[in-house]
Structure formats: structure tokens, C-alpha cells
């Protein structure tokens, strides 16, 4: 029933069994077992940190190949605003949009246009639901999954609005069907994404039954294919743009909050910072904020693992790009969105629970504490778990043993061989006496 699809895979042949990913994972979802990294599916939230840290490129993001375009009679590209931050000296978004058509897409629908509609919907929702302040953004699928498994008390604070890409996909399909007369299945709605978490959303969305996104392409795959067409497009760019400053701003941190036209917000990015904000929020430390924007990647979407440019440079480029733009080009009165809200409630998934009954868990917690007292507390990772406490939890869950700790093992071995070493000493003693 619970949905734990993931967009991170392991190439076993490349994995060296080092401890970099287990240390970096914010939900402690990875263990090294038998020399290879293994992801615990229920703990993983698709943040992509392991992909970022793996020097051996053994962690692979899941997304679609550009060849998916061939599967449809009519294709629509949905460029994420982060795409615009990838290019040097870009001053006109229309050049990128036109180049996407030259590259082979039949049409283009800017996600940033849909983002402006989502901004309008969110503004209204935030003002009407003061009882849920601060409202937490839900555009980043990683944040939704993180709250689902770790912050049950914050679920009521979540903005129950579909992310811009989904709104864009729905609008784009409707438009394409009207314009071409083709049935829905002949139209390919293809998102050009900064991150694999959107693949997870497209394949197994939470809070809505089915996504209208047919494929998720990587910005890093599209980028080299666009450079040539962009030169051509620059000569006569088509007027395909449907967004302004607000929509393009969504590509980096603070952009979504900016679209609310209120100063009462905070915007946090990067897993560690996001978790800290959520922890504090859970303790009700913030009182006067209306909105909290959270992005799993540092810098926001421009920091996704499928992008090519340094996130901070991309952020600067986006800023320069939208400096002289109109505030917004898409508006709800011209482009109404049908049912933009979540269809299903988000259900808390207590995946970190050690056992079933409370009594059982009392025993298990005591056992964890006891084991932790025995371990050296170095958090060396040699056992394959990120911390001594994580190993203790694994043992309690029946997934590891005490001797996985090399320090405990060493003590154990010392104990076994001690009679022999005494013998050895005696022999040596005898030799030197001679």
C-alpha cells in the first residue's frame, strides 16, 4: 500500500563498498553489506545526496533517455526553470524554448508558467488557512517524502497543492489534445528535470493518483543537444514564453516564497538545513511565519544532480535573466487550473519504528542503549552502518550482529587467542634467556 518507488540505483560493479554514501545519507538509509551499498527502500527519500557524494559513480539516478521522444506522435517539452540557469550569456528565455523545438519537440510548455499559477493558488491558500501557519511548501518531492516518514506532526502544515510540473503537464496535455486532435496516449509530455526525485514523482506520485508526466529527461542530457539549435534560435526566437520573474524565480531557493508576495517566510535549502528547520518547527519554535519554503538541494532546483552548472552560478544567471522581466505572464483568470489540490491526504509512515508493540519497543530501545554503551562511539562506519547507534538499531532489527563492529571483533579475537599469546610470550622468553 505504502509507496516507496525510488529513482536511485546502484551499479554493483562500480561500488567499492566505501563508506561515503552511508555517511552522507540524511535518513541513514544506506548500509554496506557484503562489500556493496544497499538502500533500505522505506528510509530513502530520493534526495540524491548519495549520487552527489559517490566518487565511483556507482549511484545512478533514474530518468528517461531522449529516445523516449520517438514513442509519441506529438511531444511537448516541459523545461524546468533551472534549465535557463545553465547557459552562458543567455538574455532571452525564448531562445531556449525555440531551440527545444528545433531539437525535435513539437511544442514547449514552460513549467515556470504553471509555477505562476501555483503561486496564485498558494497565495490564496495561505491567506485562507491561517490556522495552519506556517504553511510548508511541497513542490520538492523529497521534502514531501521526508515529512511523510519523519515529521508526522507537520503534515497538517503542508501546502496541499500539486507541484508546478504536474500542473504544467495537465495543461500541456489538454492544450496539445485540443490543437492536434490526437488522443491522450499519442501525446508525450516530457519534463526536462534538474533532479531524479521528479522521476519518482512522475512514476509514483504521493497525494494524487496518477501523474500526467510521461517521461523525465535530464537537463544534463538535453544541455549539449541544445547548444547548436540555440545559435539558430537566437536569429528568430519564437514567442513561446508564458512566464515572468515569479515563474523563473522558482528555479532557485527563495523563488517560490517570493511568489507569495509576502515577507513573512523563510527559505531553507540543503538537506541538513531543511531537517533542522523541520525539527525546530516541530518544537513550535517559529511563531510569526506564514510560509516555509524548503528545497532538498543546496541552492534550490538549480542544485539538482541532473544539472550541469554550479548551482550558485546558475542562481546568479537566473537572477540576471529575470531582472527585466515582467512580474508574471500566466494568470488564473486566463488559464484556470482544474482541481489543483492534492486528491489524497498524506499518510504518516512510521518507517523508523523498531518493532510493533510498545512493550517490544521499550525492550528494543533499552537494548539499543545497552549496545551503544558497549560500542566505541567512533562512528567509523567499518561495520557498514553510518554510526554506532545505527548499528545497534540494525542488530535490534535482526539485520546485523555485534561482531560486525571491528572493535568488538578485535576484543573477541584477543580473548580467543590470549592463551596462545601467553604461550608465545613464554617461548620467546625462553629464547632470549638462552
Amino acid at each position, binding site marked *: 500500500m505504502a509507496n516507496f518507488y525510488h529513482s536511485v540505483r546502484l551499479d554493483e560493479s562500480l561500488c567499492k563498498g566505501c563508506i561515503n554514501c552511508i555517511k552522507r545519507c540524511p535518513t541513514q538509509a544506506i548500509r554496506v553489506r557484503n562489500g556493496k551499498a544497499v538502500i533500505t527502500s522505506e528510509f530513502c527519500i530520493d534526495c540524491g545526496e548519495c549520487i552527489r557524494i559517490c566518487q565511483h559513480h556507482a549511484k545512478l539516478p533514474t530518468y528517461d533517455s531522449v529516445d523516449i521522444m520517438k514513442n509519441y506522435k506529438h511531444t511537448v517539452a516541459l523545461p524546468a526553470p533551472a534549465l535557463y540557469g545553465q547557459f552562458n550569456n543567455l538574455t532571452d528565455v525564448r531562445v531556449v524554448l525555440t531551440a527545444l523545438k528545433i531539437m525535435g519537440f513539437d511544442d514547449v510548455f514552460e513549467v515556470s508558467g504553471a509555477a505562476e499559477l501555483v503561486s496564485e493558488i498558494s497565495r490564496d491558500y495561505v491567506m485562507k488557512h491561517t490556522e495552519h501557519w506556517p504553511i510548508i511548501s511541497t513542490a520538492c518531492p523529497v521534502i514531501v517524502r521526508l515529512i511523510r516518514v519523519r515529521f508526522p506532526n507537520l503534515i497538517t502544515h503542508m501546502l496541499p497543492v500539486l507541484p508546478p510540473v504536474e500542473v504544467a503537464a495537465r495543461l500541456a496535455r489538454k492544450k496539445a489534445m485540443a490543437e492536434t486532435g490526437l488522443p491522450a496516449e499519442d501525446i508525450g509530455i516530457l519534463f526536462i528535470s534538474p533532479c531524479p526525485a521528479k522521476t519518482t514523482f512522475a512514476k509514483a506520485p504521493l497525494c494524487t493518483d496518477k501523474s500526467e508526466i510521461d517521461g523525465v529527461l535530464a537537463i544534463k542530457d538535453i544541455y549539449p543537444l541544445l547548444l547548436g539549435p540555440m545559435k539558430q534560435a537566437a536569429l528568430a526566437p519564437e514567442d513561446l514564453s508564458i512566464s515572468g520573474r515569479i515563474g523563473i524565480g522558482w528555479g532557485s531557493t527563495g523563488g517560490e516564497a517570493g511568489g507569495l508576495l509576502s515577507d513573512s517566510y523563510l527559505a531553507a535549502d540543503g538537506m541538513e538545513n531543511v531537517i533542522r528547520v523541520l525539527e525546530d518547527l*516541530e518544537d*513550535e519554535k517559529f511563531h510569526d511565519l506564514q510560509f516555509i519554503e524548503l528545497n532538498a538541494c543546496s541552492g534550490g532546483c538549480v542544485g539538482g544532480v541532473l544539472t550541469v552548472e554550479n548551482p550558485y552560478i546558475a542562481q546568479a544567471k537566473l537572477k540576471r535573466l529575470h531582472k527585466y522581466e515582467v512580474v508574471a505572464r500566466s494568470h488564473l483568470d486566463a488559464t484556470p487550473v482544474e482541481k489543483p489540490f492534492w486528491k489524497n491526504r498524506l499518510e504518516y509512515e512510521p518507517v523508523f*519504528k*523498531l518493532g510493533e508493540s510498545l*512493550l517490544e*519497543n*521499550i525492550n528494543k*530501545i533499552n537494548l539499543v*542503549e545497552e549496545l551503544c554503551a558497549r560500542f566505541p562511539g567512533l562512528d567509523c562506519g567499518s561495520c557498514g552502518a553510518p554510526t554506532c547507534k545505527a548499528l545497534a538499531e540494525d542488530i535490534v532489527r535482526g539485520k546485523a550482529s555485534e561482531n560486525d563492529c571491528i572493535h568488538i571483533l578485535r576484543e573477541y579475537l584477543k580473548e580467543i587467542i590470549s592463551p596462545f599469546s601467553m604461550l608465545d610470550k613464554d617461548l620467546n622468553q625462553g629464547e632470549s634467556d638462552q
Partner: protein
Amino acid sequence: MSDQTGSAGVVLKYTVSPDDFTRAGEASSKVKNILKQMGISPDVIRKVSIAMYEGEINMVIHAHGGEITVTITPQEVLMELKDVGPGIEDVEKAMKAGYSTAPEQVRALGFGAGMGLPNMQGCTDEMKVETELGVGTTITMSVHMEDK
């Protein structure tokens, strides 16, 4: 392994270090995570973490730190916050929302709004304040497990 588990409860002990705001909240955060691992209902977790966080902050602001003991049983989460600080002069006043004796530099940090004790009481099913001037304060709070 050991028969410590026979008592059907988890006992956790924490030391709150004095005057260190950067570490205030550490104990409540640890307890919160343990409660989540135990599958305790989100509502109980919310009450415990807020009550304990407020108590911890109080110990840092007013009492030069102290000791916290948390006992989790199938019936309740019991928190005992013990300090050897100056004691509370007027408990009744301190329990009123908005009343604060926190120094100016503490309020500048956004703490000391006079909501600590009232919040703690609001989040707990039972709360007892034992205090003696010049000797210290012990606050005992209990959040009952609801049987859902």
C-alpha cells in the same frame, strides 16, 4: 542480554549544560527521535517534545543547567527536570502567560517571552513544580499515552 528490560520502561538521562543556547534542545530532540522509533502516537510526541524543549530552555536561561530524566512506560512519558538553580520566587506568577524574569540579553535572542511554564502545563497531563529559593527547582511532568 540483561534483565534491565524487565522493568517495562525506558529510562533516559541527560545533562543540560549551563548558558549554552547552541546546545539547548539537544535532549528533547534525542527523546523525540526515540519516541518516533518506539511508534508512539504523533500527538504524544508533540506534547513531550514541546514541554521538554521549553523546560530545557528554562534550565539554560535561569538555572545554570541541570539533569533531565525521562521515563517511558506503556502508560506515560514521565519527565523530571532537576536543577540546583536559584529557585522560582513566585510559582503562581511564573505559571501565568507572559510573565518573565529572563534578563534582557536572553530576550534579545527571542527567548524569555514568559511562555515556558504555561506551555509546559498546556502540553502535559500532569505537572508538579517543587522549588526552594537558593536550593533549586524540580519539575515533574507527565504525558499520558492515549490508548488509540
